[in-house]
Every structure is written in C-alpha cells, then in structure tokens.
C-alpha cells in the first residue's frame, strides 16, 4: 500500500487534439448517418445543400436532369453573380433568393409545378388521386427567409413583399427559427379575402419536400402550417392570412364535396393530384385541372377585355427556325411561320384557331392552319401548353363533364372512404 498518486494535470489543455479528432469524426459520422436515414425517409434537404460560396473554376459542373437550365441562363444575364456560379448538382435556393430583377423572375418562373388540363380521365382516379377546389386567383410561390416573405407570380415577378408568421417570415423580437431556415409554399392568392391559399408545400424549415409524395406533402402541410400561426388573422408582423384548402380522396363523396361544396373562396375549377407523385417543376400529367361552368367563371379563355373571343385563341412560342411550339417539355409543334413574319415577331405570338382545320388523329390534336393575331401580352413568360389548347378546344365542342368523372369511379371503393378524408383535412 504505497502512497497514492496525486499528481494533477499541469499547464496542459484538458482535452488532447487526438481526442478532439476522434470526437469530431464521430460527430461527422453520426450526422451523415442521420442524413442517410432522412434521405431514406424522403425527408432530405439535399436539394439545397450546397455551400454559399463557390469557386469559378468548377463552373462546368453538370446539371442533373431535374434542374432547369433557366437558372444557368439567368446567371449569364446577371453580371454580379457570374463570379460565383453554381458548382454543384443542386440549385441553391439561398443563392437564387439573391438574384435580382429579370434573373430572379427567370428562375422563379420555372420553379412551380404546373398542372396539365384534364383531357381524359386518368385510370384509378379514386384510388390514386386527391381532388380539391381551386381557389380563384393568382398562382404564386411564397418564400419566407431571412425575416421576410416574398410572393412571386407564375412569371417570376414579385406580387407582395411582406412580413408573415411563417418560419423566418418576419423580423420579430422573438426568433421563430434559426436564420438559415426557410420555407417555400405553392399558393393561390385570393383577392376578395386577401388570403394566400396554400395548395402545396415545397420546403418547410429548410426541409425539402420535392422528393416526397403528394400524400406526404399534404400531410405535412396540414400538420405544420397551423403550428406557426400563419393561419391567424393579419397583424403587424403578419400581413396576409394563410389558409389550407380541404383536400379529399377522389371518390364519389370527395368529388361532390369539392365540386358542389361551399368554400370561403371563389372556386375556379377542380385540381386533381396523384398521391404518389413528387413535386416536379414544370408541366406534369400527375397534377391536373378540370373546369366547367358550374365550378368556374373562367372555363373559356378571355381576351384582354374579358370577352370570350368567337374563335379559340392560342399563344405559341416562336423558335429561331420559325417553328411554333407549346410550353411542354419537349415542346409540341403546332405550326411554322414564314420568314417575313418572323421579322416583326416577339417570342410569344397569339393565333386564332380555325375550327375547320383542326383534326384529332389517334387522340392527338393537330391545329392545322392558324391565323396570326398579334404579339402576346408582355407579361407572358410561357406559351400555352398542349393540354390547355386541347382542353379549350374540347370545352368549345364536346366538353369533359362532371358525370364523366363520376362515371369513371369504381363503385366498390366508396364505403371506406370517409375516414381518410378526415385524416387529411385535419
């Protein structure tokens, strides 16, 4: 039993750097494991994971298919950003939010998921689809970050710049979220009650929901939005009210509720979302819009005075080689322009459809000869889509009717539908 050692550490830091290296490695591994898990659970924020700084020499990084080249174009047009071009696979939202003017419009104009018009009823409507009433108003992206909220229209231009109760949506004393947190909502701004109706959730608190099914996005939307106070009436730090739209399983009951039900908003047709589909920028056949006179004031396109023209009109994009195309990807060719007209043309041109020339071959619409009307409205960022042209055509001749939708439902699926509705509506 010798005397006991009592020497204490002297003039030394308590933690060795070796231990620190071990600890940091463990933290890194834990973080990466949790990232992998989240990816597996489709909760990843991978879309926005690039650092905020980057080097010019790595510019040539490849863009994956799902990223719109519009961003690259936007950057070329924006001299102040050229020095820090994107270097990575995914677009950085944080960077995009620094874009100004036309560059910003260009980028945001390509971020919405655009519905196709319903030309025929998709199979398994009742099993795989949701239906909800579309509020009448302007479709827009609402982004909250850095203590403010911005809404941008489909063409990318700013609608409102305002404080909101969304996470990081206002500069308030009590911090609602860490500064890097942001949200992106897909909304319709409804003028009469000055409310943003949220029809989809794209990012929430920095979590990307792009890779999540509609089923999950709607679930998340319904459980998350009200938590923030965004659905409260307007106040100093919350200028516009947000609201969710009741979403139904697309069975007989759900369809009737959406079609005939009364809502706080003016209805403009019905939206159909495939429950398995991810949020996809641009046109998608997995989100559809359908209208008739009963549920919408705007079934047939109007001209700038609000009158329905006698002949169906279409807006097409003029390509360099004189081809006239739709906004689809890949674009659908609807005609060709002669050289002399190209001279005076802008990008988007308006034409009248000549009914006698239209043919439907193997279920495909061919417009034949078109009558040139003039340049399209300057605010236009897109040509019409093929499905829109087709829908407008059938609406004038043999519209797809509500009865057709009901008739497509499987009568056996109705019984156990009620409970699911409640789940989603919250």
């Amino acid at each position, binding site marked *: 039993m010798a005397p006991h050692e009592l020497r204490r550490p002297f003039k030394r830091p308590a933690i060795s750097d070796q231990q620190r*290296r071990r600890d940091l490695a463990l933290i890194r591994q834990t973080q990466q494991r949790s990232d992998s898990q989240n990816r597996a659970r489709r909760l990843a924020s991978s879309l926005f994971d690039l650092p905020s700084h980057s080097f010019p020499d790595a510019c040539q990084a490849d863009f994956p298919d799902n990223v719109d080249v519009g961003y690259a174009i936007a950057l070329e047009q924006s001299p102040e950003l050229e020095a820090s071009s994107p270097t990575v696979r995914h677009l950085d939202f944080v960077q995009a939010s620094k874009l100004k003017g036309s560059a910003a419009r260009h980028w945001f104009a390509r971020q919405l998921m655009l519905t196709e018009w319903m030309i025929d009823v998709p199979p398994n409507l009742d099993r795989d689809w949701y239906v909800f009433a579309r509020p009448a108003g302007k479709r827009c992206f609402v982004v909250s970050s850095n203590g403010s909220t911005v809404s941008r229209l489909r063409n990318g231009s700013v609608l409102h710049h305002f404080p909101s109760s969304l996470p990081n949506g206002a500069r308030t004393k009590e911090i609602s979220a860490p500064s890097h947190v942001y949200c992106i909502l897909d909304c319709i701004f409804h003028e009469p009650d000055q409310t943003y109706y949220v029809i989809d959730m794209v990012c929430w608190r920095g979590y990307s929901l792009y890779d999540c099914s509609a089923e999950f996005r709607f679930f998340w939307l319904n459980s998350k939005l009200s938590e923030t106070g965004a659905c409260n009436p307007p106040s100093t730090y919350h200028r516009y009210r947000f609201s969710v739209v009741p979403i139904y399983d697309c069975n007989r009951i759900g369809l009737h509720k959406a079609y005939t039900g009364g809502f706080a908003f003016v209805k403009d047709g019905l939206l159909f979302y495939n429950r398995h589909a991810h949020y996809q920028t641009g046109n998608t056949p997995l989100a559809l819009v359908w209208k008739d006179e009963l549920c919408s004031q705007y079934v047939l396109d109007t001209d700038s005075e609000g009158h329905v023209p006698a002949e169906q009109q279409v807006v097409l994009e003029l390509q360099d080689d004189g081809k006239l195309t739709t906004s689809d990807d890949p674009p659908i060719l609807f005609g060709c322009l002669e050289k002399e007209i190209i001279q005076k043309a802008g990008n988007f041109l308006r034409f009248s459809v000549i009914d006698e020339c239209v043919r439907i071959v193997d279920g495909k619409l061919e417009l034949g000869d078109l009558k040139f009307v003039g340049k399209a409205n300057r605010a236009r960022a897109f040509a019409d889509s093929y499905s829109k042209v087709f829908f407008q055509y059938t609406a004038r001749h043999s519209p797809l009717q509500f009865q057709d939708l009901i008739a497509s439902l499987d009568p056996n699926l109705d019984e156990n539908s009620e409970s699911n509705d409640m789940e989603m509506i919250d």
Partner: protein
Amino acid sequence: MAVEITQVLLNAQSVDASARKYAEESLNQFQDQNLPSFFLALSGELANNDKPVDSRKLAGLILKNTLDAKEQHRKNDLIQRWLSLDMFVKAQVKGCLLQTLSSPVSDARSTASQVIAKVAGIELPHKQWPELISTLLSNIQQQQSHVKQATLETLGYLCEEVSPDFVDQDQVNKILTAVVQGMNASEVNNDVRLSATRALYNALGFAQANFSNDMERDYLMRVVCEATLTPELKIRQAAFECLVAISSSYYDKLGSYMQDIFIITAKAVKEDEEPVALQAIEFWSSICDEEIDILDEYGSDFSADSDTPCFYFIRQALPALVPMLLDTLLKQEEDQDLDEGAWNIAMAGGTCLGLVARTVGDDIVPLVMPFIEENISKPDWRQREAATYAFGSILEGPSPEKLTPTINVALNFMLTALINDPNNHVKDTTAWTVGRIFEFMHGPTVEIPVRTILSVLLQCMKDVPNVAEKACGALYFLARGCEVVGSASPLSPLFADIIQALLSVTHREDAGESRLRTAAYETLNEVVRCATDETTPIVMQLVPVIMVELHRTLEAQKLTSDEREKQNELQGLLCGCLQVIIQKLGSAEPTKYTFLQYTDQMMDLFLRVFACRNATVHEEAMLAIGALAYAAGHNFLKYMQGFYPYLEMGLQNFEEYQVCAITVGVVGDLCRALDDKILPFCDGIMTHLLKDLSSNQLHRSVKPPIFSCFGDIALAIGENFEKYLIYAMPMLQSAAELSTLVAEADDEMIEYTNQLRNGILEAHSGILQGFKNSPKTQLLMPYASNILQFLDSLYNEKDMDDIVMKAAVGVLGDLADTLGANAGPLISQSVSSKDFLEECLASDEHLIKESAQWAKFAVSRAISG
C-alpha cells in the same frame, strides 16, 4: 517438481537469460499439467521459513497472478478456475497463506497478505471462507507486533479487493475497531501504526454507517487528525491521505471538522516535508472537486431532493486559503518545466488555486490581484513567475466582466515579457497564461490586434522547446477562438506565415523535447480547421507537403526501437493532420474536386502506414480513410481491394479496442460512400462484426456502434441484407432484451444502456428502410412483433434519453413505412403506436417531434390500409 521448486523460482530471477527462460517455461508447464500441485507447491514455498526470501516472494507473486488479471475476461477465467479447485487443496493453500503472516521475514508476510486479499476477493462474494475475518481479528490480539502489522496490512488489502456488500456491518465494526486501535497513539510500534493508517484508507469505503453516527465519526476523525501530527513522516502522510479520501467520500459530513482541518493542513503546507504538504494541499483540491461537481449539477439553487447540498467550505475558507496557496507559488524548483514528471508544492498550490477560482468565481479576483501587482515586476524570477502563474490559474471561473479590465493590461505586459524576460521559467508560464486567456476570454474582450499577438507568438515559437510548446498552445486557443463561420477570420492575413512557422517548428532538431512537435502539429490542425474560403487554397498547398513528410517516415530504414517509436509517433501526427485536412477540404464542394486528385497518392501512403502496426497510427490512418472515403464517394471503390485486408485487421483488433471502434465507424463511412458497391465485401465485414459482438474480450463500448453499423450496411445494400438477417436479428433481439432489463443501474450503466439501445434502433431503421419497396419485404414480417415489443418495453421503462426516443419513434415509422398494411394490426396493438407516439408528438425537442410526425403519417397509412 516440489523438491526443485525453490531452484526453479530462483532461476526465474537469474541474470542469465536462458536460465530464466527455461525456468519460466517449466513453471508454465507445471501450472498447465497439475494445477493443484502447482498451488500447493507455491503456497508451501511461501510459508516455509527455511526457504530463501527471493523464492518465497516470487512464489507469492505467481500465486497472486494466477488469481487475478487486468483483462476482465481472463480475470473471470481465473476466478472460475480457483472456485472449481478441490476443497482440500484450497484449504491447504489458505492455511499456508495465513501461517505466513506470522513469519519473521517481512517480505514473505507482505506478499502473503496480498495473496490472501485476492483469495478473499474471489471467495467472500461466494460466501466462502467465512472464518477469514475472525481469524485475522484474533491475530491482532496477539502480542507480537510483526504479526499485528501483517494482519492490519492484510485487512487493508482485503478492503481494497472486496466490495462492502459482502462484509456484514458487525464485521465492519470489528475491522474498524481493530484498525483504529492500531492507529492510536498508545500503539508504540510505528510499523503497526503505519499499516493501520494505510488500512483505514482502504476501509473508509466500508464505514458508511459509522460516518453517519456522530459519536463514531467524531472518534474516527479524531484518530485521523491525531495521526497527522505523529513524528513519523510516513504515518503523517498516510493520515493526510485518509483525510483526502474522507473529503470526497464524506464531504457532507465534514462541517464540524473544517476549522480544525484548516489549521492542520495550513501548518503542514507551511512547515511539513513536501510529501505531507502535497497531501495537505490535495485535501483542498479535493474539496474544490466536490463543490465544483455539486454546483455544476444543481446550479446555485438547491432543492430539497438534491443529493448533496453545497456547504461552501471553500468560500468560507477563502480569506485564509488563498494567501496560503499564494505562498506556495514562490517555492518553485529550478527547471521544473523541463521535467515531465515533476510535481512539487508550487505546482500543487497553483493547481489548487485554479480549482478554487472555478469554485468561487469572481470572489477570488480581489484576493489575488494584490499578489500579482506586487510581484510581477520584481527582479527575482520566482516572484515574477509566481505572479504570472497566479494570474493564469484564476482565468477559469470568474466572469469575463470581472477579468476583462485586467486582461488587456496584463496581455500587453505579457507579450513584452514573452520577448524580453530573461528567465525561461517566467516565459514558459507567461506563454501558458496567454494561452489560457484565449481559451477562456477569446473574442471581442481582447483589445490588442490579433496581428500583434500573432507576431509575438510566432517569434516565441523559435524559443527553447518548453516555451515554444506553450506558444503553440496559445496559438491553438487563439485560432480556436477565431473559428467564426462565414465572416473573415483575423488569422487570414497571416495564414501562410502561421503555417510556415508551425512547419518550421516541426522540423526543429529539438522538437522531440517538451512535446514540442506534437504541440506544433496539433496547432496546425486547429489552424486548418478554422481556415476560411479565403485561406483554403493555402491549406490545399499543405496537402503535398504533409504527404512528403509522411512518405519520408516510410522510407527510413534500420531504425533502433527507440527511433521506431518516434517514427510511429510522427506518423500518427501526420496521419492526424491529413485527416483534419481531408475533413476540411473534402466537406466543401468547391475544394473537394481539386483535393480529390491526391486520393491515389494518399491511399498509397495510408496503406503503407498500416504495415507499421502501431495502434495510434493505425487509428489515425483509419479515421483519415473514413473521411476520405466519404469525400470520394463511389470513386473509392478502386481502393477497396487494397484497403480491405487492413479493414479486417482493424475489425479483429480486440486488444486495442479504440482501433476496432474506429474501424467500425469507417465501415459506416464506406457504406455511405459506396452504396451497394460495398456488397462484395459485406460477407467478410459481417462475419467480423458478428464475431466482435459475440466476443467477451472486446470492450463493451464497441458494441453499440457495431449495431449502428448493421443499419449502415443494410441501408447501403438494401434487400441484399437478406442473407444476414438470420444472424443479425437474433443478436439484435437478445441485445434488446438485455437493454430493457437494467435494474438499479448507475449513471454510467444507464448511459451505456442508452447507447446500446440507440445502436439497436439504428440497426432496425437501416434494415427496415433498406428493404423498403423490395419484393422481399415480407422477410421482415416475422421480426415485426419483437421490434414493436422492444419499443413498447422502452416506453414502459421510462429511462430512455432524447436520442433513443427519437430513434425509437423513427423505427416505429420505418416499420409502418416498410411493412405497410401487413403490419397494420400488429402496430395498432402496440403501446408505442399510441401513447408513445403521442408523447413524442408533444415533445419540445424538435427532432423528436419531427420524427414523430413522420411516424404518425406512416402509421396512419399502415393502419388504414
């Protein structure tokens, strides 16, 4: 054999190596061939007073080693071996041992007492040898002092070996009575008193009940305090050791003795010889430890249910304690900074002062400042050094507001001293103090421009090794304080100079002294960590430099074992440095691609490093490869063939379990880097992981990460995990059962249990998610009810931490997500899908709530079909 055992034992200590070797071999043979005779022969040798002392001592030592081992698994084997030995053999061995206590040869007695304690350590928990303690106690009644002394020593060792749970209170009382009697001033034999005092030190753990009784405690304390005043130095020292032990075991019982103890300790610190004075200071350091722990745990407000209240002994003693400690600071030894093992009264006093500062905070500052002001500019280096050391010691504890005004003045003064003071010792302490300033006060509180500070430190790094090492340390903390994400770092303008200066230090001829080279590389690591976008290009240039250094160490040939050891150390440092660089450059997209050009060369070097078979180096290289693999992603595949043998080697390294643990982590990195391309290696990896899990040699801390690693593998290879299910699932199942059966565990056990649970849950998450959308999902159905039962039992136990809670609710979601409607009925029967899920949904913890919401979604979908 019995006849010649004496000679064999003597030969085993021979200077002749071959004789020694032969003797050792024949002893081993003897043990293997006839264990009972082996025990009998050795104990007989030890007990025989006619035998030479050297053979008796070795006989006892070998006996001791056949009863105990450091490694737990070997220890268990030895215990079982002894227990299963023939009753009569054991009785005879024990008889010899007890008999030896009366031997006139003190070495034989002392050896026997240790062996008796080892046997007691095995037998008492099994309710064997019940007469031992009474036999020993009756020994003490004997008149012969040497028997008394040996018996008291035996009681001391016994208390060290045996847990108090296996000795009943009646016997404890008798032991304590015997020990205290031996300590008493009426005992004239100093050997007896010393053995008794040392025995008390070990017996204190048994005295819980006695310390709760006022009269018994008073008596015990009086005897201890009296023993601190005996003329015999060793007894005084042993008595102070008892006081130190009492201060931590019975802190809450000390109130009424503190005044007396202060007087005793102050006298010892002032007048007594160093070994005693050091123990006296240690008493106060130990009280500080107690109060710091209590204050850490409860903050300043104590509720009625706090285990131990803080009695603020240090605060009360402060006015007298601080001057006492300050006095010790002036008793430095020349060149103490050059001696790694030095420990003297000045060092102990300063260390205690630092603890006092952490205990009382601001209150210490006014008591120390006059001392500093008076001494800091004195011609005698001892005074300048003491003043600086005092200042450095009190930097942790007091609030920045309290210290800031002084800091800026002091820092200015010290930067000058670092360059101009003629004394090495003063400069050493000054550089250390500057480092402490940055450690605790960094940031806006320091008014002096970083540039000025840096230029002084860089110059100081050229000073003698011990000073340069402290300067590196100061730079380490300065850099750490500058780690501000995003904004410009004040180090940036001089970044290249700093790197250059540190590299020069590593090349100094004398960098092996005072840990200088290590300090330089560790500082380099910290500087690399806090590089900003502006300075990462400089870090990029460092890559080939460090690789060349590492290459050079691998080329060195024909090294002596001493040189080889140094070479290994350097390789460890270089691999550590590369690891930090990989982490830095590989984690940011812009630098990653340029950096990854070096992967080929780097892997080549790492593989050669593995050939060196040194644990630390192995560990560092392994960590570096993990980081590299993650950065390289699928491209890492081409290195797998070459790397795999070393990965296997790491997974089999039971002895150096840190290496094993780190290798397991690296398997996870590889899974995430390679995804399903890791498949060809999985048979081997899984085999080793399963072996690791079933081994009782492997340190338990490695097991939770192995389970997590199952999850990593499953997530990477998806349904291909199928063939491992029959092995992995039962392991997970039995570990799960074990982890829910932890009754009355201490904090450490609860923490381990939660780590184990987290590992199990991560394994399940990975496996379930890995099988998602696979046609083979139904293979998991048979396990669903066990997994849910595990979740339910976790919920019922109520002792899981937040991390486990998040993982558990995540598994619930994964199960529902992957198995869907098939598991719907099972899920809806489980408590987890209701009460537990609700509890998680209501959690304040963001991550738990998030997982819970996801789980709710998956569960509702699975249940509704």
